[in-house]
């Protein structure tokens, strides 16, 4: 239901009322912004010099390094979690009861434990010593692998039954049916959900902050707390810069998801059966 179904085209009275609401709402919002603005300027946060720190090559390199280490963890965790998800999903759909049960228990358990606890437990050394990067990658892999496995399973279940039956009827083995019939269709149906879970993975890399992995947020705190300008710490400025980086990264991924979804819809409508060729004239020799 689009929003416009919920209300009539405004008449003269409603138009006046809407204008009043708009003005009052905007004024309230402006008042809030103005109040925050005044508080910030009281604390000297609008001093132009505070923004100057981003002109230093050292700070810029620091941000770039942090961005790269965030992206590195995201890339590793993204790939590993998808591979792990495929394994878990296969185990979850296995014909052997013990295998299935192990997968169910594993998925349920790690989906209900806070990710921070998984990462922290790996880091403080339940499994021996682990660098903060690998603790982060492994934690993200386990948690997101479980979530992605459930997404894949939903995708496999959404494939019409006839597809698998037809494949078995053709004499394909179970591995072949899963690998060449079910999974391609499942991945295609679930691609938007898979990518939005990847956005979650990207956002969760910020938990590396807690285990002292030098990613974006860690660098934000370092810059905010260690470069005072005339006795004022540039906290607001760093939050704005780093928040913008995160939002840009996530929106880029989300846009990719939207584009793929649109493309998938179009392809389904667009595929048409090939037209019959006009009969070839056979010339008699």
């Amino acid at each position, binding site marked *: *239901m689009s929003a416009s179904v919920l209300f009539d085209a405004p008449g003269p009275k409603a138009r006046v009322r809407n204008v009043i609401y708009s003005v009052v709402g*905007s004024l309230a919002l402006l008042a809030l912004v103005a109040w925050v603005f005044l508080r910030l300027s009281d604390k000297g946060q609008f001093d132009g010099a505070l923004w100057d720190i981003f002109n230093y090559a050292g700070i810029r390199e620091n941000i770039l390094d942090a961005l790269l280490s965030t992206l590195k963890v995201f890339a590793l965790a993204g790939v590993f979690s998808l591979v792990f998800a495929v394994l878990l999903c296969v185990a979850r759909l296995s014909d052997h009861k013990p295998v299935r049960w192990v997968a169910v228990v594993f998925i349920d358990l790690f989906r*209900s434990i806070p990710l*921070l606890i998984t990462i922290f437990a790996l880091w403080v050394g339940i499994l021996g010593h682990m660098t903060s990067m690998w603790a982060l990658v492994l934690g993200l892999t386990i948690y997101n692998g479980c979530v992605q496995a459930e997404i894949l399973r939903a995708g496999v279940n959404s494939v019409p039954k006839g597809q698998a039956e037809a494949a078995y009827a053709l004499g394909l083995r179970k591995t072949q049916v899963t690998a060449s019939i079910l999974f391609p269709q499942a991945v295609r149906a679930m691609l938007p959900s898979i990518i939005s879970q990847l956005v979650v993975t990207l*956002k969760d890399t*910020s938990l590396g902050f*807690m285990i002292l992995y030098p990613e974006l947020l860690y660098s934000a705190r370092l810059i905010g707390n260690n470069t005072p300008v005339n006795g004022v710490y540039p906290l607001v400025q760093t939050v704005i810069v780093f928040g913008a980086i995160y939002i840009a990264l996530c929106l880029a991924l989300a846009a990719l998801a939207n584009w793929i979804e649109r493309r998938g819809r179009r392809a389904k409508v667009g595929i048409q059966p090939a037209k019959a060729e006009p009969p070839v004239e056979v010339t008699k020799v």
Partner: protein
Amino acid sequence: MNVLLDNLALFREGFLGTLSLTAVSAVLALVLGLVIAGFRVSPVPPLRIFGTLWVTVLRNTPLTLLFLVAFFVVPKVLFPGINSFVLAVCACGFYTSAFIAEAIRSGINTVPMGQAEAARAIGMSFTQTMRIVVLPQATRAVVPPLSSLLIALTKNTAIAGAFDNVDLFNIQKTLSNDGYDIAMIFVWITIGYLIITYAINGLFRLLENRLEVAR
């Protein structure tokens, strides 16, 4: 020595901390989420813009960044000396409200168009249409995603523990300083979280069965 029995009081404090933080921020998130979802479908353009902005910004920011703002920027710049529990509630509540607003909006989309058209045809205003016709029917579709959002909220409160708000995750520091076995500490903390998440899961399953109507 047994970690749980020796430190029952500490565990109780942590458990209640997590529980109260979850409950209060869930209420805040539900109320805000409903209001923002209303904004996003309302006839007044500035409210629609505000709703869209709120959802876009909060959904694409890591919760850890919000906590960083709440615990390091807000007390230093805006409200000196504010309670850490209030800050944690605001961070968790605002973050979750964006997701809840989206869940409610997609719930509104599942209500057949004829319902809203019929409501308009008998002369209902926007608020009446929403309150009497659309939202009660949307509830049924919203309950399942809401349960997973609240479970996610419960898990996210652990981040508040890392920022010195007393909760289940936070007591881990005290206990490991006391020299208890780390693995056992985490087992008990995990069980604490599992109790809360499974309780939410059961509660919502009950609610779902209650709301189920044969159609």
